[in-house]
């Protein structure tokens, strides 16, 4: 009998979407055929998504990577001796020496891809629950202070300091308080929330439990978009396991505290990512945005003081508690502290998740690590920060990823999404889509957003068709102004951002002969 060898095949939805289950089954079958003892562990994704399905083999030197593996290549991998790290055209050497991985600073995603996401033992063995154990020894106000001193700002888009939000909820007097995790992740081009919920769900449970201790909450909800059935299933399993092992519920981990946690499923409305619309939705209502004040921190879910935080904000909390505020704050630049998991998507050669300190430039992300476009054509534009984010041309790629530097260019870091387009993109069409998306997803409460976006589509159509262009461009500018000024929330308020950036940086696309195809379109 040969020695037992551990092989890792991710169970992340992205890996599954390109055949990870079939690859895992092929490995099990081939090992049986060869009487080779193999344990297949279904880990989270390492985030090098262009290599998925990425198979790793545990060797004395470390984990060795092969990918992207197709089921029909599995026999060949065995033939090449991949179980001992043998050379093969799909081989990449040690996983952690792959440049894309090696140059990251993984704090939030430290465990993602290393462990079996549904093993509490694995989680513990890799530093899990250390932060919560420390929080259990601290006064609530001290937990808030620790998080405030780490410099952590909300990763959901608005960048509000997390510790200060928690302090507000702590100071509010009420018979009941809530922790609501915003896992709506509606921004196109982003998938970090999904990856960590599927790859390290206990990290989110731990972060939410720390938040509960910090503010005195006893009930938590994770609001996950319905487009993520796999993440929902993983979270529910993880929550069950956490209850079984007393990391949730009454007397958690032998303390006097109680914290209950439940997953709620969204229903396909982008606006329910806006925090007050999300609260309405959890309450069982239409996802209409509430006017602020009152802040959710004071009158949130069911009118009670509520912490609303993004998945990544909450998943950054365990490491801050475990290693201290100073450790986290030492990463980053200016008022953007710590790390951000950037997500490289669209037309990019090396798409995936790249976690690093704030301050890295777009150029490094897109070219040095991203490898340029997947199509091999020149990069023309990147959209940063989701569908409400600006389109930036190459001459702005020197910008450091930093909340303030981006704001100065009328752009935003948002949830860290970076979508790359090659030179076949038609920016007038992208601007039209921004308006169309707003028209589809507007909650309907304010006229500039609800009606303005529909008018926006029509005006851009006329510009594209070459009808009275100057007049219509002026009209579009007015419309953008009205939406920016007259919208209650960022849906209507920021939709002009992608539109205006397209107009500003790519004016030639709005000035073509009406019937001419987009530049270099095939």
């Amino acid at each position, binding site marked *: 009998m040969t020695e037992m060898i551990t092989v890792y095949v991710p169970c992340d939805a992205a890996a599954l979407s390109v055949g990870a289950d079939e690859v895992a089954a092929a490995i099990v079958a081939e090992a049986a055929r060869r009487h080779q003892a193999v344990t297949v562990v279904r880990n989270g994704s390492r985030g090098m998504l262009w290599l998925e399905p990425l198979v790793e083999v545990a060797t004395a030197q470390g984990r060795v990577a092969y990918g992207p593996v197709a089921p029909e290549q599995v026999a060949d991998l065995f033939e090449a001796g991949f179980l001992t790290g043998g050379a093969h055209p799909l081989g990449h050497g040690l996983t952690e020496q792959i440049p894309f991985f090696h140059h990251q600073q993984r704090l939030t995603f430290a465990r993602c891809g290393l462990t079996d996401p549904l093993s509490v033992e694995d989680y513990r063995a890799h530093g899990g629950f250390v932060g919560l154990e420390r929080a259990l020894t601290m006064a609530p106000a001290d937990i808030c202070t620790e998080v405030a001193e780490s410099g952590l700002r909300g990763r959901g888009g608005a960048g509000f300091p997390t510790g200060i939000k928690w302090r507000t909820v702590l100071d509010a007097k009420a018979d009941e308080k809530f922790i609501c995790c915003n896992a709506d992740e509606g921004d196109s081009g982003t998938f970090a929330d999904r990856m960590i919920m599927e790859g390290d769900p206990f990290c989110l449970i731990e972060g939410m439990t720390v938040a509960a201790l910090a503010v005195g909450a006893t009930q938590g909800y994770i609001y996950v978009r*319905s487009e993520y059935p796999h993440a*929902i299933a993983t979270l529910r399993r993880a929550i069950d396991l956490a209850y079984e092992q007393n990391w949730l519920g009454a007397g958690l981990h032998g303390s006097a505290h109680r914290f209950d946690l439940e997953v709620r499923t969204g229903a396909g409305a982008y606006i329910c990512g806006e925090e007050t619309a999300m609260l309405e939705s959890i309450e069982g209502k239409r996802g209409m945005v509430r006017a602020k004040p009152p802040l959710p921190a004071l009158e949130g879910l069911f009118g009670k003081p509520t912490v609303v935080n993004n998945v990544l904000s909450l998943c950054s909390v365990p490491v801050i508690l475990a290693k201290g505020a100073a450790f986290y704050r030492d990463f980053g630049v200016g008022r953007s502290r710590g790390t951000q998991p950037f997500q490289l*998507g669209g037309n990019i050669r090396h798409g995936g998740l790249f976690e690093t300190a704030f301050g890295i430039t777009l150029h490094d992300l897109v070219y040095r690590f991203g490898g340029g476009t997947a199509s091999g054509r020149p990069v023309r534009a990147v959209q940063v920060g989701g569908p409400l984010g600006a389109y930036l041309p190459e001459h702005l790629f020197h910008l450091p990823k930093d909340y303030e530097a981006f704001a100065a260019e009328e752009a935003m870091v948002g949830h860290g999404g970076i979508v790359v387009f090659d030179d076949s993109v038609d920016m007038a069409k992208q601007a039209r889509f921004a308006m169309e*998306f707003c028209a589809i997803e507007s909650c309907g409460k304010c006229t500039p957003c609800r009606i303005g976006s529909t008018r926006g589509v029509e005006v851009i159509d006329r510009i594209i068709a070459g009808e009275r262009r100057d007049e219509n461009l002026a009209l579009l500018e007015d419309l953008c102004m009205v939406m920016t000024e007259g919208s209650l929330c960022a849906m209507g308020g920021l939709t002009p951002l992608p539109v205006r950036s397209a107009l500003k940086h790519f004016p030639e696309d709005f000035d073509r002969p009406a019937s001419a195809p987009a530049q270099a379109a095939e």
Partner: protein
Amino acid sequence: MTDPRHSGTEAGSTAPWPAQESSSVRPWDAAVAQQIIDGFAGQRGALLPMLHALQGCFGCIDDAALPLLARSLNLSRADVHGVVTFYHDFRRTRPGRHILKVCRAEACQAMGADALIAHIKDHLSVDFHETTGDGAFTLEAVYCLGNCALSPALMLDETLVGRVTPARFDALVAGVRS
């Protein structure tokens, strides 16, 4: 070896139905519907979980479900109707046996989603929100499936598919139909 695709039960709820549409739905049955609704009794903000469970069971939110929901939650029928119509997920008519959601958002656009969508509509002879003549597929648009590094992406029932090419799509459809 654990497989996280086995869905766990929801803490604090008793819903054994998947949150999303599934391909095995049953005809409307008021008694079953009431049983589903009662399963959420006492849960706060229960309307969305109830709607998901009803749709998971019957494929859509039947008109006959509205009064049952309204009565159970002490809401007006108009309130319930308002919620059902607000959310893109909830459908009022029974869909095809499989639901195909194709991503129309930016990362997928950058990888040729528009051309893929044109191919899909042509291949299935349907537009968005329509069901194929054989009742096999209902086509829907979706705005990001969180698979933006493996674009273009689509979701067939609850299975995510990445790097979709027209050829891969045709094979997928043929596999389901056979």
